[in-house]
């Protein structure tokens, strides 16, 4: 049975030299039962510490941890019904693949016959059935990863934890295993928590993404929501490639309506949320995917630096009038060359306004969609 994971003001402090480092700062988080949740963030944000506390490998400094209704804060890892796939794969080098996958069952006391059956079934699913009698070092990196997966799900745990398991694999293998991990999750009745610094993994695999920043939870949302409605410049920058473009603009009132001015543009944003920031400089965020060559409702001229073709679309790195970089994504690069000056544009529903502290204040997609919806009703 999959179980919900809930943390209550979970905190972890380390003593480093003569100061205290806070790895996790009173985290309140609920991971729904049976969901695939990814914890993402750059290195040093505390994501692995959080996972290791869930596993019981690290003791929280304070706070509580619950699996379902059960308080497991003080339980040993042995007593938590979990599996874990480690960053360095962690296969027992002296055991065969069969023994590696079956070790948890052996400890549980599952009889030999049933154990063999379950190990073989797992190996079948992971396409390593013909590798069972080999030692791990005779396998390729991808096969080793599959053995680690097999060992994690063969005991049918309530919770499976992944600690950056693919960081050492090449891109092709990663893409392949991403699909397999998801298929496994569908097959199992388990809550999955997957830690990664790779936002692509977070976006492609998860039901929910938890973005961590310096030990705090920055945002918890499904991948698409995270992409379209980041709640801070931090998330907008970290999630999605290339990173969101930020244009510093002045926020002023024009006939009582908050208006963004800068880069030769004048954008009216009729939102009360902006009023406290009138007279300040705010960040206008636009995703490179929503910035199109040739224009839109609002336009600015940029100079092309580098074009990265990715097959069906290309990422274009350019310089905007104030000398800062700006990126956009386009599927038509026949007419543009490095050194050219082109006009790029976006529409009002593509913009996000971030306040001076990096917090998202207005999402164009919500403001202007609902505005047009209201108009239609009228």
């Amino acid at each position: 049975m999959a179980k919900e994971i809930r943390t209550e003001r979970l905190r972890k402090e380390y003593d480093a030299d003569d100061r205290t480092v806070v790895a996790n700062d009173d985290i309140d988080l609920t991971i729904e039962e049976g969901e695939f949740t990814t914890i993402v963030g750059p290195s040093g944000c505390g994501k692995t510490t959080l996972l290791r506390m869930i596993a019981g490998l690290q003791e929280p400094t304070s706070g509580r941890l619950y699996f379902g209704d059960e308080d497991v804060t003080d339980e040993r890892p042995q007593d938590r019904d979990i599996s874990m796939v480690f960053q360095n794969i962690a296969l027992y080098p002296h055991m065969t693949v069969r023994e590696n996958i079956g070790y948890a069952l052996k400890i549980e006391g599952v009889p030999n016959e049933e154990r063999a059956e379950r190990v073989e079934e797992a190996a079948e699913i992971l396409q390593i059935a013909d590798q069972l009698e080999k030692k791990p070092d005779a396998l390729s990196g991808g096969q080793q990863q599959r053995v680690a997966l097999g060992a994690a799900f063969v005991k049918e745990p309530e919770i499976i934890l992944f600690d950056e398991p693919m960081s050492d694999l090449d891109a092709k293998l990663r893409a392949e295993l991403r699909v397999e991990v998801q298929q496994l999750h569908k097959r199992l009745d388990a809550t999955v928590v997957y830690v990664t610094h790779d936002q692509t993994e977070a976006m492609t695999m998860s039901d929910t993404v938890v973005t961590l920043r310096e030990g705090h939870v920055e945002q918890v949302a499904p991948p698409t929501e995270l992409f379209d409605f980041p709640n801070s410049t931090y998330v907008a920058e970290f999630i999605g490639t290339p990173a969101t473009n930020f244009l510093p603009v002045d926020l002023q009132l024009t006939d009582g309506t908050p208006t963004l001015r800068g880069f030769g543009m004048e954008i009216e944003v009729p939102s009360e949320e902006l009023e406290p920031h009138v007279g300040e400089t705010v960040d206008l965020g636009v995703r490179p995917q929503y910035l199109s060559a040739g224009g839109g409702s609002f336009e600015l001229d940029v100079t092309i630096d580098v074009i990265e073709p990715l097959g069906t679309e290309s990422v274009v790195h350019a310089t905007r009038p104030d000398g800062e970089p700006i990126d956009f994504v386009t599927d038509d690069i026949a007419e543009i060359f490095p050194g050219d000056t082109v006009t790029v544009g976006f529409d009002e529903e593509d913009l996000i306004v971030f306040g001076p502290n990096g917090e998202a204040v207005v999402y164009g997609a919500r403001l202007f969609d609902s505005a047009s919806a209201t108009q239609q009703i009228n």
Partner: protein
Amino acid sequence: MIAAVADAVTDAVPQRTLGRVQRTLTYLVILLMCLLTAVPLYVMLLVAFQPTGAVFSGGDLHIIPQTISFENFTELLTETDALTYTYNSIVVTVGVMVLATTIACISGYILTRFEFRGKAAFSRSILLSYMFSGIVLAVPFYILFQTLGLLNSHFALVLGLTALLSPLNIWLMWQYFETVPISLEERAWIEGASRWRAVRDVVLPIARPGIVTAAIFSFSAGWNNFLLAQIVLSDSEMYTLPVGAALLLGRDAGWETAMSVSVLICIPPFLIALFFQRYLMLGINIGESG
């Protein structure tokens, strides 16, 4: 100038001939080294397997034995206490192997996996204590064992040898355990294994080469020790082989008997060197890397 000549020679001599010369020189050096070790051993065997008195008959030693005889060994086993010495040596050696290896495993594991106050000082003191030779500690050991009433016992000898040996063994096992990733143990805990079971199922099997190496060091220390055995053991009934051999030499038992005891002493180390070469090399490698 010399370099120029060497270059000229190198240029003049064909590659194949040069290779042959290099090979021949290499083998010559190896042969010389072997002779240095082998000749004394050969003399030992020669004397041990000659009939009594044959070695010095007519005043000259035959390099090629005229006859082979087990007379000396028969005499050794029937007329001396060599069997008792052998038994004592085995008891002491096995004792040292078990005790020293166990201590090395436990201490090495603790040094690898646990942080504690004074760990750095402790590890330095391990190295430092290894620098003292046995003779420095001989008298303190004597006083210690006398106080404890342990003099003239194999147990005391085992304790003393383990103490002398432990710095090296602990260091070896520490370095070896450091090569076992903690995540292997963590995975075992998560899979339900207790700390002890994870050590038994995962850490010890992976560290087996290190354990075998520590056991070989312990064997060598136990089997070959002379000094401490002579100090601790006073009753000839308790003597180990090296002390017994010295006793035989001291009495006028004859060189043949002395050499046949030596042969007896040499057999186990020889077998170990033969079958556990790999682990001896490993000990050397760990020593270098650590």
